[in-house]
Structures are given as C-alpha cells and as structure tokens.
C-alpha cells in the first residue's frame, strides 16, 4: 500500500467517524444545556436510524435504487423518527418530573427492543423473509472539485459522504442558534437557572421540550449516517456504543459546541490513523485491536490536562419546580 493512499484514507475515514459523533454530541449539548440529562443518545440514534432505513426501504421500489433523493428521504425520516421518539423523554422528564437517568435508560431499552422487533416484522411483511436487518447499501461518495486539490488537507474533501456536509452545516446553524439567538439564551438559562427564565416570563417546560426534540432529531441524523454509510445496513449492531461515545465527547468538550467539535475530530482522526497504519504495516487483525485502544488512551491522558475547569450546567438533572425557592 502506498503512503499517499494512507494519507488519503485517514481524513476520509476519520470524518465519517467523527461527524455522526459530533451531531449526536450537539444534540446532547442542546438537551443538557437545557437542564435535562441525556443518557438516551444511544437509543435515539438507533431509533432514528431505524425510521430512516425504513423510509429508504419503503421508497426504494418507487424511486429505484441509485436515486439521489433517497439520501434526503433517509435524513428526513431519521430526524422525524428521532424527534418523535424523544417526545417520550420529554413527557417523562418535563411532564411527569421523572428521574432523568431512568428515563434515559427506558428510551435505550425500548429503542433496542422495538427496532429489532419491528425490523423483523416489516421484513416479514415486505419480503416474507425472517431477518433483523434492512439492507440499504451505502450512499454515494463524492469529491469536492477545488478544495480537494489542497495539499495535505485535500484528503478531507475527497470521498465525502453527502451527510458530512449536511452535518457540518447543521452544526454551524446549531452553534449560531445556541449562542446568538434569543431562543439559545433562554435554553441556556433553562440549564443554569430556570427560575430566572421563569421570572423573565419564559416557559421553562416548553423550552426544555423543544431542546429535547432538537436533540432527538440530531441524534437520529447521526444514527442514519452510521447506518447509511459505514455499516450499509440497519441491524441491531447499530447499538455499538456511538451514543455513549457522544456523551463522553460532550462532557470532554465541557458542554460547548466548538471544543466538542475538536474532540470529535481528534477522536475520529486518531481512530482512523491507528486503523490505517495497521493496514499499511500489514498487521494481523489481532494487533489492530490493540492499536485501536490508542484513541481512548490518548483521550484519557488529554482529559488530565483539560478537565480542571469542567463544569456541568448547574440545573442539570433537576426537574423544574416553580414553587421551589
């Protein structure tokens, strides 16, 4: 294998690992900055991936394989699916004032059970075969014309999935909304001091529900990205811990979007670099596993230096009680 191929593959693979992580983590940031604990990212991304894959499977006979619309249908399906499933979290946390850790675990357990069950039901109805996976293939890759010719950094713009641009755009918009708009300010107030928002005439419950719904939509988008690119199908193997990794990235990024972006990129790049170096050296798969430890170890080491001033949102995990103080 040529060195240039390796240099090319590292950023391409790194992006395809970092982007879903980033968008899920941003979802988590919205939810937790709004003061609601979000342990349900794993379940929400899985459910989003399920609805996205389902809409692809349903639309495939109408549009034919290879239609460019499929990607957008998948994304829309995933965002709607993730958003509607997150309403359960909103109902439990905001309306019923439930323990938010439990609510997150409920979502994770339910999502895993429901999607596995529904996938086999749908498969049986559509193809009369018993299978717990939707084969949806991977979306087309493309290369950006001019940017890809930049030396070294060009690798980021070759062999891109369409999702990556969408996610970058969404990430930028969500950054703008969170820090530069009235809604974003209110949302952050919900997480720091909900009573001040209440006193200012805002509606804490409604703001939190919207935050949770945004989180669901973004997590769903992350889920369909994984299903429609890297793994090329929807199956229970979607629950392989991406959601938990995103939670880790969010906390490492101190509940702020730009540091979280850096964490996700760092994580994706070290992961793909380790993998590509193994391929390049022609190591057996056993040793690859050992090198795949590197990103996690380095993250732990970095945390030692960057955690000193980490501070979660103050009202995180407290159900809002108007009468309390």
């Amino acid at each position, binding site marked *: 294998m040529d060195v240039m191929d390796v240099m090319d593959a590292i950023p391409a693979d790194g992006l395809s690992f970092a982007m879903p992580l980033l968008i899920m983590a941003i979802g988590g940031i919205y939810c937790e900055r709004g003061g609601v604990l979000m342990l349900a990212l794993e379940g929400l991304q899985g459910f989003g991936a399920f609805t996205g894959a389902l809409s692809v499977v349903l639309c495939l006979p109408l549009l034919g394989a290879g239609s460019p619309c499929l990607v957008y249908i998948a994304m829309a399906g995933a965002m709607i699916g993730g958003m509607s499933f997150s309403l359960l979290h909103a109902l439990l946390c905001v309306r019923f*004032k439930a323990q938010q850790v439990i609510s997150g675990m409920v979502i994770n357990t339910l999502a895993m059970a429901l999607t596995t*069950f529904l996938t086999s039901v749908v498969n049986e109805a559509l193809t009369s075969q018993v299978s717990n996976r939707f084969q949806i293939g991977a979306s087309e890759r493309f290369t950006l014309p001019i940017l890809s010719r930049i030396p070294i950094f060009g690798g980021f713009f070759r062999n891109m999935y369409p999702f990556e641009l969408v996610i970058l755009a969404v990430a930028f918009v969500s950054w703008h909304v969170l820090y530069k708009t009235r809604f974003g300010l209110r949302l952050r107030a919900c997480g720091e001091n909900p009573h001040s928002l209440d006193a200012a005439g805002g509606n804490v419950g409604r703001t939190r529900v919207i935050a949770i719904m945004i989180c669901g939509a973004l997590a769903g988008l992350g889920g369909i990205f994984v299903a429609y690119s890297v793994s090329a199908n929807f199956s229970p193997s979607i629950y392989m811990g991406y959601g938990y990794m995103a939670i880790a990235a969010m906390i490492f990024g101190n509940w702020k979007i730009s540091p979280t972006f850096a964490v996700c990129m760092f994580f994706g790049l070290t992961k793909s670099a380790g993998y590509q170096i193994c391929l390049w050296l022609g190591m057996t798969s056993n*040793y690859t596993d050992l090198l795949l430890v590197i990103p996690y170890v380095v993250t*732990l080491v970095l*945390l*030692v230096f960057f*955690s000193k001033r980490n501070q*979660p949102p103050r009202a995180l995990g407290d159900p809002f009680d108007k009468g309390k103080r």
Partner: protein
Amino acid sequence: MRTGISETLLRWLCGDRTSSAAVPICVALLSTLVSSAALLALGHDPVTAMAAFLRGSGLMPKPSYAGGQSMLTDFMSYLGILAPMMLASLSVIFCLKAGMFNIGVSGQMLAAGFLATALVGYAKLPSGAARPLVVLIGAAVGGLMGAAVGYLKYLFNIHEVVSCIMINHITSYVTGFFIDTRYVDVITRSSRACSASSRLTIAGVRMGGVRAAIPLGILIAITAVFVVRFLMERTTAGFGIKIVGLNRDAARYAGVPVGRSYVFAMSIGGALAGLAGVTYYLGYYNSIVPKALPSLGYDAIAVALLGNLSPPAAVFSSMLVTIFQKGGVYMSSVTGAPREIASVVIALLLLFSACGAYIRERARSALGKRGGG
C-alpha cells in the same frame, strides 16, 4: 366516617408508611397490565406468556422436562444469573450514593472476569484454593479500576462518565487481544472454558434424581447486600459518602473529605462490579466472548434505579428483571412471541417506576380535592 374504596386506595398510595410499598406494587401491576395488552394486540395469550416467564425461571413447574432436569435445574440457573445482576446493581447504587454515576460496570466486570480466568481459571489448583482466589482477584481488580476512576475525578476533575466509557472500550479491546492471541478456543471463538475447580458454580450436582448446577455466587451476592447496607448505615465513611452525594459543598464545609469519599465509593463500587464479573464469567458462564462488553452492566443501572437506590429493594428489582430476561427464551419458544417482548416488559417497568413520584403526587392532590387529606 365513610371511606370509599377509591379513597382507601388513594390513602394507601400516598400515606407516609404505606407509600414506599404501595407505589412499586402499583407500578408492577400497571406494567403487567400494559404489557399484557401489548401481547394481546400481537395475538398472544398474555396469561400463558406471563406464566412462561415464571416457568422459564424455575419459579413455576413446566409441563414437561428433559431427562434429569426439573424445576430445580431452572431455578438454580436463575439464581446463577441473578447473582451478578444483584452485585452489579449494588455497585451502581453504592457509587450513586456518592453522586458518582458508575457506567463502567461492564468494563470492571470484563477485566475482573478476564484476569481471574487467566490467572486462576487455567491453573491446576484444588477448588479450596482456586475459588477464594477467584473471588479475591475479582474484587481486587474491580476495586482498583473503580479507585482509578475515583482518583481521576479527585485529582483532575475528570467526569466519571467519560473516564468510565474510555476504560470500558480500552478493557474490551485489550482483553479481546489477549483472548484472541492466547486463550482462544478455536471452535467457539471465545476463551477456553475455565477449570471446574475454579468455577463459582458446582456443575452437575445430583439432587434427588435431578441434575442442577449450584451457584455459589448467590451467597456472595446476599452477603454483599448486608455488607453494603452496613457500610452505608453504620460507618463514618458510608455516612460521608451519603453527605457528599446529597450536597458536595455542604460536605466539604462539614469537614467530610470529599475526594477520599469519591475514591472510597468508587473502589467499593468497582469491587462489587468485579465480583459481578467473576460470578458472571466464572459462574453462570465459564468462558468469555472477546471484545463484547456484558450488557448486564448497563441493565444493572436500570435495576438499581428500579429499586430506588436501596440495597434491599435492589434484591427484589433484580429478581423481577431477571425473571423477564431469563424466562424470555422459554416464553418465546412456548408462545411464538418475539424475545424482544421481554425487553419491552422491562422497559415498561422502568417507565412506570420513573413515574412513581408523579403517581404519589396525583394521589395526594386527588385526596386533597375531596377534602379528606
């Protein structure tokens, strides 16, 4: 003085004495009702399905048994998987009392199970030496891993969720590497079976003509319930942990060593998770699947919360959840309903238990409106 049935019920639900028992019972009933409705909607008989869960767990006799097996065989197997579940949920409870969320139970289980298997499981030791060693190694490995997480939080303010998730992945890859290169069984693709003398289950015991495997783990788990309760209720360190969990600043003001409490809570929690690991990998099973974190470590979080973070209640909640997990296979084979129903039932249980406070509040306000409260 006329009190209608509904008023008695409401009083029962929100009374100071009765509420802590009434709400869980109400939750269990509600989730049974809703899951029965779901089973009916799918075209299965809910009564048969619910009975099948119990039968699969050895709590009700099955209509027929294979040769040499009986209800006792199933029940012993049920106790075998109940033990790690209880230990793991105790681990989550102990850490949460200090305000630490131990999401690393899976990693601690895997590491403890792996090291105990590698160091003792393949050595030719008599069972009298091997079994205590396995337990010791399990507790020590888990305890050290937990303590590491506690120290990272104490010294560098590293959030325990992040370090636990990182350590989970590292453990999974590293143990996977060693199993694949050194201890692999070429046929099953998991690690070679550990020796019978080191396993915390006495397999193939004949009792009155039936064979059963006696799980020693359940003894460890029951002891652990008492130890955890003693530590929390009767020791200074346990009291410190509870204060830290309730209000860290107040604890510091009162002179409780906050950092040391974190480390202590996490090392005890880790040790419990390590014990769960050895009772799981060298008890219920006898080998380790490489690169797979046990999902039991995550389920334990749910079980701990279902038991409202009290050690005795965790015994009941792990029994309940284990009935559905263990009986799920038999239920599926009897009724033809998918296995995932078991997970749905567990999720419903959790869902309603999360609403426990809401149920109590509603009962109280309903009583208030009648002017009886």
